[in-house]
């Protein structure tokens, strides 16, 4: 089973995110970069399938030079090789253009299965995986928390509001991860040493045969006009009172009579 995992490097969720001077991007200098949490689940699942059934796990990343750190992390977890689409011309691509680039790289790769995250916690687009599946002409199964792969078929438990749908597809297919799928492993020290020797192939936009005029910040279909900080809530009103019952009565008075929400 040959598996490709789409992995993105994103700001650590703990990071303080500040708006850059241009007003449409974030300041990157103080940010710690990590593997997108949903993609960790994707790498882990790929490794488990490989351990059970054999095959290869390839990590595919589109991102700036430092994104190779995240590829190395995945290799240290146990993936076999990396492909890094790294080209200033691709920077700032929107989700659709990113998917075009990833799909172009996938065309040259043998694969039975593609695993991606449900969302990348930077732009929160929830879109790249579905678009990649469309460009590859394969089915996508979103928000999966259980997978069985056998006999050229994949059965996924897809989480939806209020329940789960079990769906079956034939391979090749793409699915996206949801928490509950697995517990991602940490890279071991020997894993980290080995990762240094694993191949990472770097590709430019031109290498992929993609028209430079359709990718990158200048060619976004979804144009960012402004970044703002979220509106501040008014300062909290702490409910005073002697006993819990007094506080509860006061809270209910507010919720029921003042803001009429219950």
């Amino acid at each position: 089973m040959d598996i490709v995992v789409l992995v993105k490097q994103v700001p650590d969720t703990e990071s303080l995110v500040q708006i850059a001077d241009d007003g449409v991007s974030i300041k990157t200098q103080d940010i710690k970069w990590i593997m997108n949490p949903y993609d960790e689940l994707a790498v882990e699942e790929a490794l488990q399938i490989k351990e059970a059934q054999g095959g290869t796990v390839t990590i595919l990343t589109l991102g700036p030079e430092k994104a190779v750190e995240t590829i190395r992390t995945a290799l240290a977890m146990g993936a076999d090789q990396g492909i890094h689409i790294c080209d200033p011309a691709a920077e700032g691509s929107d989700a659709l253009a990113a998917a075009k680039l990833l799909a172009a790289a996938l065309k040259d790769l043998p694969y039975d299965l593609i695993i991606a995250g449900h969302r990348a916690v930077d732009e929160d687009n929830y879109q790249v995986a579905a678009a990649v599946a469309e460009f590859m002409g394969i089915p996508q199964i979103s928000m999966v928390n259980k997978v069985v792969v056998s006999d050229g078929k994949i059965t996924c438990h897809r989480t939806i509001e209020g329940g789960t749908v079990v769906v079956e597809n034939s391979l090749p297919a793409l699915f996206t991860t949801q928490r509950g799928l697995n517990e991602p492993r940490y890279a071991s020290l020997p894993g980290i040493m080995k990762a240094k020797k694993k191949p990472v192939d770097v590709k430019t936009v031109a290498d992929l045969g993609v028209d430079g005029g359709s990718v990158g910040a200048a060619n976004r279909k979804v144009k960012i006009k402004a970044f703002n900080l979220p509106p501040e809530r008014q300062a909290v009103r702490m409910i005073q009172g002697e006993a819990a019952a007094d506080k509860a009565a006061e809270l209910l008075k507010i919720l029921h009579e003042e803001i009429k929400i219950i």
Partner: protein
Amino acid sequence: MAQGVFAITEQRDGELRKVSFEAVSEGRRVADGLGADLTAVVLGSGIEGLAEELKKYGPDKILVADDAALADYTTDAYTNVLAELIQSSDPAVIITGASAQGKDLSGRLAARLDAGLAMDCVEIKLDNGNLTYTRPMFGGKIVAKVEIEGSPQIVAIRPNVMDIVENSKEPAIEKPAVQVGDLKTKIIEMKMETGDKPELTEADIIVSGGRGTGGDYAAVEELANELGAAVGASRSAVDEGWRPHSDQVGQTGKTVSPNLYVACGISGAIQHLAGMSTSKYIVAINKDEEAPIFSKADFGIAGDLFEVLPAIIAEVKKLK
């Protein structure tokens, strides 16, 4: 030239989901702003009745795509049918819900149509016929204003945020012949929770419990029951095995926007806030008056949840 607005609705088991009414109401507002027509689209099997229900929200036209293969959502059947309907009507704007279905569908549809997509929007602004979409990014630490170039523009709206507005019309109801195409996905089973508890992403009120519950959710659940609310949880509570993953609110869980979010024994970590900061009102109950959740809440009670919750439950009961 592309014109008109499409609102794609969502049904399950022949019942329209709430986000459908939000999409059609918002569609009406956008269409009025653009001086264009609104078409509501409903897909399913044996669903004529649903068109009646949608009339209330003011579409000029309702397209009913009725086919046995559309009974339950699958990416391939829904994308095939919608892509064809969209290509033949050429709308300028397509609105759908950013629900589990809407996220799956809109990403695929955008790629098929080579269209820009603004996902999980909390506001659509109209300015001289120009549309600007507001969407949280970086787990809500940033609120971006985006515009989409070209057409159609696809916008998926965050459930529970936009107003449902009644605006009765006598729309034309059409039942186009649909081609579901070559289907690859086979639904084996739908395992749905039973009971009439509201779903987290659709609930008006959520009572959420964190590590501070110590795993005892009795009071959280009782308050939720009294209020007709859904129960949510922090990731710590899920990691402890106290609650299922489907209850998790936050950056790696669900994004919720209820009218009222009651956080009990939750410290207010940034990843938790990412999932609930667009709630209309937030009440925090925490025994640590320095807990970060208080800086994001509207109303706070510093106290032990095992004393405060029973007192609140008693007060709620008095209202009945």
